[in-house]
Structures are given as structure tokens and as C-alpha cells.
């Protein structure tokens, strides 16, 4: 088996995922193609330089349907011999694209891949591709389906995180993201989105609310209480699966959950030989990858078993990891991760996360790998672990090691 390395990692800024968001006017095809072009430009990827583009996307209908990966390649300046593979593991799609590419490279199936993902949530709304797990009674009942917000609240209830815990975590995420931007920590990886005239459309994450404090968050009502307790009553379903709980404590709201945004990210993954042939310096080795299925009802605890698995795959223990990125889908997801492993917040999500900057579903997994790598380099750390929770009860993780 060979090794797989990351040569570059870039992302678009994240626009608010609403009709007044800056990227609402930009198609997912353009957002993707622009990143592919940037990747080509930055790394001199002429001709049939990469084996494939593996592109994550969680809502593959309409303009994100019809194999968006191939469409984006054709819309970009990449050689038409680069095919394009759209994949979907919900929120882990972007991470899975990187892991899949890495493992192909390790196995010798191609020297290099561009892996990443995109989600234009303002244009192709979450859930607009349907989902039998939520709608088809035969599986919805068997799997005790509840929406993610309820799942996040089950985590808070089961593992004892209060509303204040969740809010305090969110405030810190906002402050860290603001500081990271102020200090230019994302400078090397952000590719501003421009129009066909070269005019900038967006060059900075616009979902952030750096002034958020406990008082502001305290004013928000729990977002999932009604659908849990009243119509249609998802809490009753949750308690069927978690019968030792008397009731679900609803602690999550828009302020301590990830933001709905538009965005994309790409990672250049290749073998040692690829780097040598193209005169590129590897930034990190992808030491281990993992994916796992978990209870679909609590749904979002996947980062914990995925991390156990990726550590085993890498022959490491939690103490061997210097820095962590855990996707901030909801406060409780990250709080649970820190609780399970005794990880200090000081080495985790150092530059904030999706609560502050937003969570473009298909891209986020690739985004946090890039953010992790940037921070490993900034702090000159050796190892980093990225983990992400996934809808329908899954988790994924990646371990990076600097070379």
C-alpha cells in the first residue's frame, strides 16, 4: 500500500443560505467549477493530471442532480478526460470524498484526485431531494426516525448538557471564528467568489455573528420543542428508543446549531510520486480514515465511534492527536465528543466552526480537513483529527499527519 498526501486544500467563503445571501445568485455548478479552476491554477494541473473529481453533495436534485461532479468538470477548465463522481453521505460527503480519494491513491488506483464538495442550500433546500427514511413508514418507524434537531436534543438530555452549556459553546465558536478571520488565518485557503467580469461577489464568511453573547442566545426559543412535544410528537418516538429518559430537554435553537449556508471546498489528494512528478510539496499525509453507522435516532453521536475506529486504523490513541476539528452541526455533538474523549476545548475547533460560519452540507467534511491542516501548520503541530456527524446515524473521521 502506498501513502496518500494532501497537496492543497481550498474553499469558497460561505454565504448566508437565504435568498438575500451573497452566493444565492451563484449556481452550484459555477461554485464548484471555480474551485476546480483555482485548484488547477494553484497546482499547475494541466491535461489529464488527476484521475477523477470526487464531489460530495447531500441534495442531488435539480441543478445539484444529474452527476454534478461531471457537470462541474465540464464547466471548468479541467481536461474532459477527468470524469467526475458525485457522492452522498449527507454531511460527511465532503470528508468521504477526501477519504475515498486517499484510499484509491493508497490502493494504487490513480495518482491524484480532486476531492471535495458543494452545497447551495439557498438554491436547493435541504430535504428537497426527498428521503424515504423520513417519509416511508416501513423504515421511518423501524428506524425510529426523528429530525436532527430532536436527535441533538436527545444527545443533550442523554449526556447531560444544559441550555447554558450549549449556548456557551456557541458563543465561543463565534468569538473564535471572528478572531481567526481578524488574524487572517484562513487567508491561504479562501478562494473568493467572483463574477465573469472579475468582480468579487463574496470574499468572507458572512454568516458570523461575532457579537453574540449568552444574553442574546438566551432570548431564543428552543427550535425543536413544538415538533417534539406537540405536532407530530417526535419526543414520543425518541423515548421509545431511549425509555430510561423521562422527557427530552430541548436546548437547541438557531444560535447554537450550525448555520444554513452556501459554500464549496476542494482538496488535492495524491501519491508521493504525483508530487514529485508535478513539483508539488505534500502538506500532510492522510494517515487513517474511517466511517461507521450508529443508532439513527440519536443520529449524531457518530464522531465518537468513528474516532475510535480511525484511531485504531492509524494505530494511535486519543493522546497522540494534537488538534481536533469536529463539525459543529449542533453544540451537543461537539460537547459529547469532548466529554467522551476528555478532549480539551483548547485544542478543538480552534478557529470556530459551523455554528459561526455555517455548514454547507456536502462541503463541510472537506472544509474541516482544510481548516485542521491550516491550523496544524500555524501551530506547527504533527497530528490532527477531523470528525463529522452524519444524518441517519453515521459518522466519519480522518487523521492527518504533517510530513
Amino acid at each position, binding site marked *: 500500500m502506498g501513502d496518500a498526501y494532501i497537496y492543497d486544500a481550498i474553499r469558497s467563503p460561505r454565504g448566508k443560505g437565504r435568498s438575500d445571501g451573497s452566493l444565492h445568485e451563484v449556481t452550484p455548478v459555477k461554485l464548484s467549477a471555480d474551485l476546480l479552476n483555482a485548484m488547477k491554477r494553484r497546482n499547475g494541473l494541466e491535461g489529464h493530471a488527476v484521475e477523477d473529481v470526487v464531489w460530495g453533495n447531500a441534495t442531488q436534485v435539480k441543478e445539484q442532480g444529474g452527476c454534478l461532479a461531471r457537470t462541474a468538470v465540464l464547466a471548468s477548465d479541467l481536461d474532459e478526460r477527468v470524469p467526475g463522481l458525485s457522492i452522498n453521505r449527507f454531511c460527511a460527503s465532503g470528508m468521504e470524498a477526501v477519504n475515498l480519494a486517499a484510499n484509491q491513491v493508497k490502493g494504487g488506483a490513480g495518482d491524484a484526485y480532486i476531492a471535495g464538495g458543494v452545497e447551495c442550500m439557498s438554491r436547493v433546500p435541504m*430535504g428537497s431531494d*426527498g428521503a424515504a427514511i*423520513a*417519509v*416511508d*413508514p*416501513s423504515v*421511518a*418507524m423501524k428506524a*425510529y*426516525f*426523528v429530525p436532527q434537531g430532536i436527535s441533538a436534543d436527545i444527545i443533550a438530555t442523554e449526556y447531560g448538557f444544559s441550555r447554558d452549556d450549549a449556548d456557551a459553546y456557541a458563543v465561543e465558536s463565534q468569538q473564535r471564528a471572528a478572531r481567526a478571520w481578524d488574524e487572517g488565518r484562513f487567508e491561504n485557503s479562501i478562494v473568493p467568489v467572483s463574477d465573469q467580469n472579475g468582480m468579487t461577489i463574496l470574499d468572507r464568511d458572512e454568516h458570523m455573528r461575532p457579537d453574540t453573547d449568552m444574553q442574546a442566545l438566551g432570548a431564543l426559543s428552543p427550535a425543536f420543542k413544538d415538533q417534539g412535544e406537540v*405536532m*407530530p*410528537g*417526535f*419526543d*414520543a*418516538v425518541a*423515548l*421509545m428508543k431511549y*425509555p*430510561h*429518559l*423521562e*422527557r427530552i430537554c430541548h436546548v437547541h435553537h438557531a444560535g447554537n446549531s450550525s448555520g444554513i449556508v452556501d459554500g464549496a471546498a476542494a482538496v488535492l489528494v495524491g501519491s508521493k510520486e504525483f508530487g514529485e512528478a508535478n513539483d508539488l510539496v505534500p502538506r500532510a499525509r492522510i494517515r487513517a480514515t474511517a466511517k461507521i453507522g450508529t443508532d439513527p435516532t440519536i443520529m449524531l453521536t457518530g464522531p465518537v465511534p468513528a474516532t475510535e475506529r480511525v484511531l485504531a486504523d492509524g494505530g494511535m490513541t486519543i493522546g497522540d492527536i494534537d488538534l481536533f476539528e469536529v463539525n459543529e452541526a449542533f453544540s451537543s455533538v461537539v460537547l459529547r465528543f469532548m466529554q467522551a474523549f476528555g478532549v480539551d476545548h483548547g485544542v478543538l475547533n480552534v478557529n470556530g466552526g459551523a455554528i459561526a460560519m455555517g455548514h454547507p452540507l456536502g462541503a463541510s467534511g472537506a472544509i474541516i480537513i482544510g481548516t485542521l491542516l491550516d491550523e496544524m501548520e500555524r501551530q506547527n503541530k504533527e497530528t490532527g483529527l477531523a470528525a463529522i456527524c452524519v444524518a441517519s446515524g453515521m459518522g466519519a473521521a480522518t487523521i492527518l499527519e504533517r510530513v
Partner: protein
Amino acid sequence: MTDFSCEIHDDGVAVITWDVPGKSMNVLTREAFAALDGQVDQALADDAVKGIVITSGKESFAGGMDLNVLASIRDAAGEDPAPKLFEFVMEGHRILRNIERAGMDPKTNKGGKPVACAIPGLCAGIGTEIALACHRRFMADTPKGRIGLPEIRVGLFPGAGGTTRYSRMVGAMAAAPVLLEGKLLEPRKAKPAQLVDEVVAADELLARAKDWVLNATDADLVKPWDQKGFKLPGGAPYHPQGFMTFVGASAMINGKTKGVYPAAKALLSAVYEGALVPFDTALRIEARHFTNILLNPTSSAMIRSLFISKEALEKGARRPDASDQKVRKVGVLGAGMMGAGIAYVSARVGVDVVLVDRDQASAEGGKAHSEEILDKGIARRRVTEEEKAEVLGRILATADLEDLEGCDLIVEAVFEDPGVKADITKSAEKIAGDDCIFATNTSTLPITELAQASVRPEQFIGIHFFSPVDRMLLVEIIKGAKTGDRAVAKALDYVRQIRKTPIVVNDARFFYANRCIIPYINEGLRMVGEGMEPALVENAAKLLGFPLGPLQLVDETSIDLGVKIARATRAAMGDAYPDEAVDAVLFWMADQGRLGRKAGAGFYAYDASGKRTGLWEGLRERFGGEGNPALDEVQNRLMMVQALEAVRALEEGVLSDIREGDVGAILGWGFAPWSGGPFSWLDMTGAGRAMEICADLEARFGTRFAQPSLLSELATSGEGFYGRFGSVRNAA
């Protein structure tokens, strides 16, 4: 005579009349369904016939399918019954689809003959499904008229197209009350619900239906789903609006049924999967789900207990041979909560009531209970002022025992004290005639002992009502050692009059129902004492389909009553008393002054208005431990502790018919209705597996889980309870 007859009127309308000979209500058999099909075919082929009206020769239209038919098809199909059942169900679809298409050209939708349904009264189950296949439904405006699809109540769902047709008529959300709750609607509500198109005066029913048939146009006959561009009302599953409906429906049904009713799940799946395909494919999908439910042991057990056995018991399966013992005048001693309830249910069905208490005011207070219930009925338009006056007129509230003269049944419902009961028994018997049967409504005192106060012990019997009397469906009849056949017949005839379901048991401590309920509560208390999370105890019970968890149940019945029963049992049993662990929790609660709901404090906390706010935090502080057992262990304990008690009751001869054990458990205390009752549950589990569970539980939790020898016998022989005891007694 056949069940359906067809007459072609001079105006060219073929009137097909459903009138099953020798029955008060139409129920559909397989043969009758074929006969209907033949008559429809004939009428469609007859050039002289312009259209068809299907109606009934009785006051009602139909009670539904004869559920015995379904059971017999399943039984007759042998080893692999699915194909036979599927074929039967698909044949039903073909017959009804033939009515619905009525000879129309499949392409142009033209040339069909109009078919109307004229519904004179009650219309349920397949009666409604036949009606839904017709082009227009007329219902007579009568106070007792009801229409609906109650299949879900016996563990089925509408399987003759009712699910597919009705959900396509009104949409998945609007169909829920009818399909999922099995609600029967009165005519004025049936029209907005689209179960009927027109509500007409009873004497115009047939004329109006015929009139419509004679004037209907081609377009009037075409169902929406047979037209191009049909869209499911409320949105199909992957339509934005329908999406939320279907997501919500699964959650609601899962939450409400606690996942233990397969018919509800299958129903929703049939609606969902059917909504994504053309109508005839949807019918086939419905048939596959329906076949699967017919084969599900849960639905078989529910049909057996809640329909076949229940009806058999109500019709006197256990009645000794004796002349008609219908009650004309009942004396009720004690106008407390129970006595007042007994007075009401008796007067409501036309029995004269003498309601006696120590003073006139107390007696009047008991009578006022009837007035309250009747007033609520009036508010809901279920009772008229005249009916109220009639019912109240039948109740004589008095403090004078002499008024008992002429009563042919006396029901004593005074304080649970043997001395008090003995005194009133003696006094009342002196006044009542020699023929009068004397019943006691005790829930705890042995009948044989109470009978000692009677000069006519062969006419002395226990009639144990459940609270609240007007709502609980079960009545437990207890024979004392000397109770004679006429007393049993009297009690059974009386229970039939008041439209409740009887079980007849022999005298033993706590009879049958309380004998099983008390261990259920006690097991819950033990678990709390062991340090288990109280929510797990309650949720485990609810996930078994019990209406109340053990802790909520003991709050409702009151903790001091529990203490009282425990003390009495301890006194009676001496050193053999097995429930120290229960008392450690129960007595401590009593010491804290937490006596249950009535005290506003028990295992649950309550707010000022008496509403439960949650399990009392003090429980966790006092008893809480580390970690919880797996759900199935908790559930096995809760189920087994009751089921074994039922088996012991059978072994000891307290129960003499397992049907009574099953029906009594479901109606008496809500024992997991999906299981069909404790004996059905043991059969479903298998005696061998039940033995394994018991062995494990006994080793870890004590001898109350010891296997009764009857269970080991059945495990060895491979028979189930119904295999061993069912057929013989069913034949009786």
C-alpha cells in the same frame, strides 16, 4: 333465501337488497360477496337496467365482514396460507372494482351504469368499503346511524379497498380519524368527511338514491383516481405539503401505538406506497399488506380475544342452563362512587333502580352522578332531554330499605368491611323476596365468607365492577362455594343487559383481575426499590401497550389503599409474606405523605390543578442507583409477573376458561391489547421460550417467577394454551 336479492323496478333501476336471513345485522360472508358480484354483473349486462341501488333490508346497512370467515380461510389454507388469503383479498378488490367501473369503457370512461348506495343505518367495515366503491352514497338521517371503518380496533385495517379509496378521496391527513382511529361518524359528520354524499330523510332514502341513478351523467360515475392528472388531496408523499404529512404520520402512529400494533403500521405503509402508483397497483399493495396482517399473530390474537371470544362471552358462553333471568328492578346498596355508577348503567338500559344509602342526602348525591353523566351526553348531543328524564325517573333515591321490596337483584356496594356488609346483607334480604339474587361488589373480600351472612347462600354472588363503572367494559362475576346456577345466570343476564362483558371466576383472594394487577404494580415498585430509573419502569410498560405504567396506576388507585392491601395480605400470610421489597418502597411513600393523585403527591408530582408534572425527583434521590437494565428485561418482568399469575389462576381453578383470562385482562386492566391477553401472549411467545425467560427471572429475582407446572407441561407437549384448552371450550 340468499343474503342479497335483486329486483328490477319499472323505472329501470335494479335494487339490490342485502338482508341476511335470521340475523339482526348484515355481516358479509365469502359466498354472499360472490352473490353480490353475480347480481351486479347481471344488472350491468341487462339492457333494461339503467342503474343500480345497493341497499339493506334491515335498519342498518352492515356490521362488517364476518371475522370468523377470515379466521376460517386462514385455518383452511393450511401450511402456506398467504397465497389463499391474497387471492381472497384480490377477489374482493375485483368485485368492488367491477362495481366502481360499472361497465365503463377503460379509455373514454363512458358507458357505465350509475351505482348508488342507500344506507339506512349503521354501516361499518366492509359495508362501508362496498359503499365507497359505489358512485354515490346516501345515508338516512337517523340518530343511531353511524358509518365508519373500525377494523383497526380489532388489529386489522380496511382491506377491501377502504384504505386506498378513502385516503385518495380525502388525503392522508384527513383520513386518519376514520382509518387510524376507527371512528364511526354520525350522518351529519359523515358528509363533510365524504364517507357519504347526501344525508336524507329515512323515508326518502331509496327514492333519492334511485332519483340520482336515473339522472346521473357519465362524468358523475368517474372516480378522481380514474381520471387523468389525479393528485392526492393534501399532497403525495414527495410533494412539499405531503412530505410533512407523511413524516409526521409515521411519528404520530409510532408514538401513539408504541410500535406494538402492526396493523397501524401496515395501514400507513399501504397509504404511502399506494400513493406513489396507479390505483389498481395500489389495491394490490393494500392486499399484500392486508394479507400480511391477517397472518400476523397479533391480529389473530386480537380478533380472537376482542371480537370472537368477547362476543361469545357476552352472548352467554359461560351461562348455566336456567330460565331467562333478565333484571327488572335492581336494588343498589350504597350510593358512593361505585353504587352511583351501578345505578346509572342499570337505569340507562331500562332497569328500575332503588338506590339506597344511610340518609336521603347521600342517596340523592349518588343519583346526581347519573344526572352529571347524562348532562355531558346532552352537551355532546348523544343524549336527549327526554332520555335524561326517563333515566332519572327510573332511579329511586332513598334511605329506606323497605323500598327494596320487589327487587329481583340487589347489588351491595358499601364500605369494604365484612361486618358492615354482613349487617346490610341480613337487613336487605329480609325485605327482598325469596327469589331475589344478592350480589356484592367487593373487590377484595372473599365471597364465600361474605355469603355466610346470607340466609340464601346459593343466591349470593360477587359482581365486581371496575371504576369508573360507566366507562369500564368488564364485569367480574365471582362464584362463592355455595353460589348456585340461577345466581350465575342472573348475574350474566344482568351484565348483558347493561352491555358489558362478563367473566365468571371462582372465589379466591383478589379473584382474577386484582390478583394479576397487584403483582404488576408490585413489580414496578420493586424496580424502583432496586434503584432503576423510574421513567424506564413507566416507559417499559407503555411500550408494552399498557395504558398506565405501574407507578401511575398506583398513584391513581392510591398508595394508602396499597398499604392497606399489603397489611391485610401480610396478616393473612404471616411468615410466607413475599413482598417486603415492595413494602420498603410503598410504606416509605406513605410515610412521606405521598398518597397518590388524590393527595396531589405520589410517585408523580402534580401541579395545583392536579395535572401530573413528572416523576417525583425524591424517588431518584432515595432509591436511584447506577445504570439501568435492558428494556426487554424490564418488560419480561412486567409481562411475566402478570401472565404467570393468570396461569396460576387457571391451575387453581379460579379461572375456568382461558378466553375469560384473555378478555378479562384486556378489558379489566388494559393488559397489552395487541397480545390478545396473557394466555395468547404466552402462546405467541411459546411455552418453551416462556420457560427460559422464567428460569432466568427466577434465578435473579425470586420465586414469584417460578414456572407453574402447567406451563412446563405445555412446553413438553408442544401445545399452546389455546391448543390444549381452546377448542374444547370454544365448542361449549
